[in-house]
C-alpha cells in the first residue's frame, strides 16, 4: 500500500534541517518515528523533539495513515 505523507518542520528544527517540509511517498505501514527516519536518511530524531499527526500531538510509535500530515518541532515557547 502506497502512503503519501506530508512532513513539516518548525522553528529551530526547520532551521537546522534547512527545509520546512517533505512530501513522502512510500510503501506502508509506518510509525511517526519511521516517517522521520525515511525523511531524514535514517538520521535519529534529535532529543526533545515533539511530533504531531494531523495537528494533534502524537507519540513516536503512533501509526500514520495515507494522507496524514506529520509535524516535528522543538519544545514550545509561546505565551
Amino acid at each position: 500500500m502506497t502512503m503519501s505523507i506530508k512532513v513539516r518542520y518548525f522553528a529551530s528544527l526547520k532551521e537546522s534541517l534547512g527545509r520546512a517540509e517533505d512530501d513522502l511517498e512510500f510503501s506502508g505501514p509506518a510509525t511517526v518515528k519511521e516517517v522521520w527516519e525515511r525523511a531524514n536518511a535514517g538520521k535519529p530524531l534529535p532529543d526533545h523533539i515533539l511530533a504531531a499527526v494531523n495537528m494533534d500531538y502524537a507519540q513516536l510509535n503512533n501509526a500514520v495513515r495515507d494522507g496524514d500530515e506529520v509535524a516535528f518541532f522543538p519544545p514550545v515557547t509561546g505565551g
Partner: protein
Amino acid sequence: MAVKICADSFEPWQEVQQYRNSAKKMAGKSGATAIFIGMMRDVNEGDAVKGMMLEHYPGMTEKHLEKIIAQAQQQWQILDALVVHRTGTVLPDEPIVLVAVWAVHRGDAYDANRYIMEALKSTAPFWKKELLKSDAERWLKKNTDGYASS
C-alpha cells in the same frame, strides 16, 4: 469562545471589549473577568533583547488553543473565554498574549484563566527567537515555571 492569531500588534483592551460586546449573554451575568496579558520584556536571561520573532503552526495552533479552552470549560463554570496571541516580529513592551475569562464567580474566572495560560505556555505550538541587542539571534529553549524566585 474565540482564538485569534495576530500577525500585527494588537490592543488587549480593545480585543476584550469587542469580544464581550459581541457576546450578549454576558451582559449583567459576568460578575468576574480575569485577564492575563503577557508582554515582551527588553531583558531575558541577563541579555538585552531588542526584538523577537514568533513562529506558530497555522492550523494546529488554533485547534490546540480551542482544545485548551474546552478543557477549561469542562473543569470550571465559565461563561466565555478569549485567547489572542501574536506572531511575527514583536518589539519590547508589545503584547504577546492575552487570555480573558468571564465567569459568574471569581474563583472560576481566576482558575480557568491560569489553567489556559499554563497549558498555552507548555503545549501550544509557538516558538520564540530572540534578537539580542548584540545582534545575535537565539531560539528560546523552553518556557520556565513563571516565577522570579525559581
